[in-house]
């Protein structure tokens, strides 16, 4: 089965979807490891879990697991559940049956970012200026960083974690056998988002000054891309690492990283203007598709080969806050600041 945007059905009707209303903004969404369950992190402390099959009956809302806002949510790389972080300073492992186990409690700190590494089963969380690593039942602490960690990501092989902060980024080696000092890549200003490229060669950040900054990890050289009207808080590398998608433009915006890289070249731009400013962008986990959510509520699916795009959801005034692809790449989870929990099925 494949997604074919040339199919006229895309132009005529919206794809099948399930939309449920929660009464708190959605901060994050994710699928679990096998793609059977989708979950949404809510502003009332709930992690709302739903079957990924949009035709299956949706269970009732579960009681809140965090005492404030659930700020971060990822699929558990070691099980069938999820891992969540909240502004109550806790990191929770939520099993498939909904039971929660506390992995970390940092009173007074917010758990704003969580990332996972699929093959090593590691989870990394930021809590204030510190990065915490959870792996094989063990918790390790890295930091403090010069300021609150505003973004983090694993390297391709899971051996390192990069953290964004004021003044640049810090790359930690996670090896317990060889204690390597952290590497600091400096660039003035505050870095507010971070994504390590899927081939491990580049680390990209969004900055407070509405720029993108990218480092070549091996050479420690860097580049800067400007021209955004807002901070770029969503970055997404394609599965083949040939492109870096960035939010905060009216259309899909992809910087080419194959060959000599993006220096001196304009980004590839495609898609329909008029939907507002893109708030979240998520490259497909395998193919050359990309999903983009807008501040107007519109959701688009793009294909970089044909530069074609289709609308998956109409604008409704509620800004899209999160997007997640199912592992098989046929479903898309979408959340917004009004509390709509949307799951789109792209098979048609």
């Amino acid at each position, binding site marked *: 089965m494949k997604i074919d945007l040339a199919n006229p059905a895309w132009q005529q009707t919206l794809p099948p979807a399930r939309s449920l209303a929660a009464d*708190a903004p959605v901060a994050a969404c994710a699928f679990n490891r096998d793609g059977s369950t989708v979950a949404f992190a809510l502003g*009332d402390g709930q992690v709302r879990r739903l079957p990924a099959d949009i035709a299956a009956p949706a269970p009732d809302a579960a009681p809140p697991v965090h005492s404030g806002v659930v700020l971060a949510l990822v699929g558990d790389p070691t099980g069938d559940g999820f891992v969540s972080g909240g502004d109550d300073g806790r990191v929770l492992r939520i099993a498939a049956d909904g039971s929660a186990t506390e992995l970390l409690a940092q009173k007074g700190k917010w758990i704003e970012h969580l990332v996972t590494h699929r093959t090593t089963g590691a989870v990394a969380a930021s809590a204030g200026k510190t990065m915490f690593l959870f792996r094989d039942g063990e918790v390790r602490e890295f930091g403090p960083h010069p300021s609150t960690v*505003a973004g983090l990501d694993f390297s391709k092989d899971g051996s390192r974690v990069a953290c964004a902060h*004021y003044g640049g980024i810090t790359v930690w080696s996670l090896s317990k056998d060889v204690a390597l000092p952290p590497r600091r890549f400096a660039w*003035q200003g505050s870095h507010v988002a971070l994504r390590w490229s899927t081939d491990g060669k580049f680390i990209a950040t969004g900055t407070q*000054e509405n720029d993108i900054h990218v480092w070549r990890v091996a050479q420690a050289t860097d580049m800067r891309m400007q021209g955004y009207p807002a901070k770029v808080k969503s970055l997404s590398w394609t599965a083949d690492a040939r492109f870096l998608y960035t939010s905060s433009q009216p259309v899909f915006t992809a910087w080419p990283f194959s060959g000599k890289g993006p220096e001196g070249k304009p980004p590839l731009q495609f898609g329909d203007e008029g939907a507002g400013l893109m708030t979240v962008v998520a490259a497909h986990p395998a193919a050359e598709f990309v999903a983009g959510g807008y501040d107007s509520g519109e959701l688009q699916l793009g294909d970089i080969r044909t530069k074609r795009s289709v609308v998956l959801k109409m604008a409704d005034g509620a800004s899209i806050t999160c997007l997640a692809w199912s592992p098989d790449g046929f479903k898309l989870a979408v959340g917004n600041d009004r509390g709509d929990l949307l799951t789109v099925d792209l098979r048609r």
Partner: protein
Amino acid sequence: MAQPQVPVTVLTGYLGAGKTTLLNRILSEQHGKKYAVIVNEFGELGVDNDLVVNADEEVFEMNNGCICCTVRGDLIRIIEGLMKRKDKFDGILVETTGLADPGPVAQTFFTDEDVKAKTRLDAIVTVIDAKHFFGQLEQGSEAEQQVAFADVILLNKTDLVSADELAKVEDRIRGINRYARIFHTQKSQIELEAILDKGAFDLGRILEFEPDFLHSGHDHHHEDEVRSLSITADRPVDPDKFQKWMGALLQIKGADIFRSKGILAIDGAPRRYVYQGVHMMMDSAWGTPWKDGETRSSKLVFIGRNLDGDNLQRGFEDCLK
């Protein structure tokens, strides 16, 4: 969805001036409103409230070549996080540390688009310990800056000084900032309406808020002292000339000008032109229309250090028709 912007009140003042007492009152009193409070010392507040957020003041320089352009990075993150809550609130209070310069907090609301979209800076409230103010002025520039930035001043602990001492403190405060509203308080006792939801940064309410705004005048001070002054003109303003002059002035003197605001009678324009600035940052808009027969006069206010009143007056006069 256009949601109303949440008003943010910035609470400054030296250590021990009475900020925590005031915050405790706001959090514990029955006033039917809900406030989120961003504090810098967790646990200092006696009230257990899930709307109290701990912040490490993270002052970030913007990497844009402007040296005085600093923002509070922690505030940008926290405001974004607060907006994800299910329960909305009527306002946000930001407590700064005793030695904080209010500049970065204020500039955050001029600079960051996400913060601007969801919140608005309402007023800067400074709590002053009447007994220790003169001593604090000598310890560094912070106490002076906190007064200079203020829209509202709580002259607190008035019970600990004589009437004579109090008058001297108030004189000194007026010397720095003639435009702030001063309340005498003991144990930070004040009606919350006096300090919350004031609209001091609301361009449409500039006239309403400033008690002294329509009286101009020059006081004589030492050059390096922080003071406030105003300039008026009855002839219409040439907008291009004004923009050029003000742009250059803020470029050169922005670090010394803490706050500036103005109402301009632009040549040929039916409405007032109003602006408000913090250091080099500025917001402006068209205000209310001039009435028939009303005297169309312009007025600028500056609060800052090393202000040369005569020079500013001459510069402004060159912008007139």
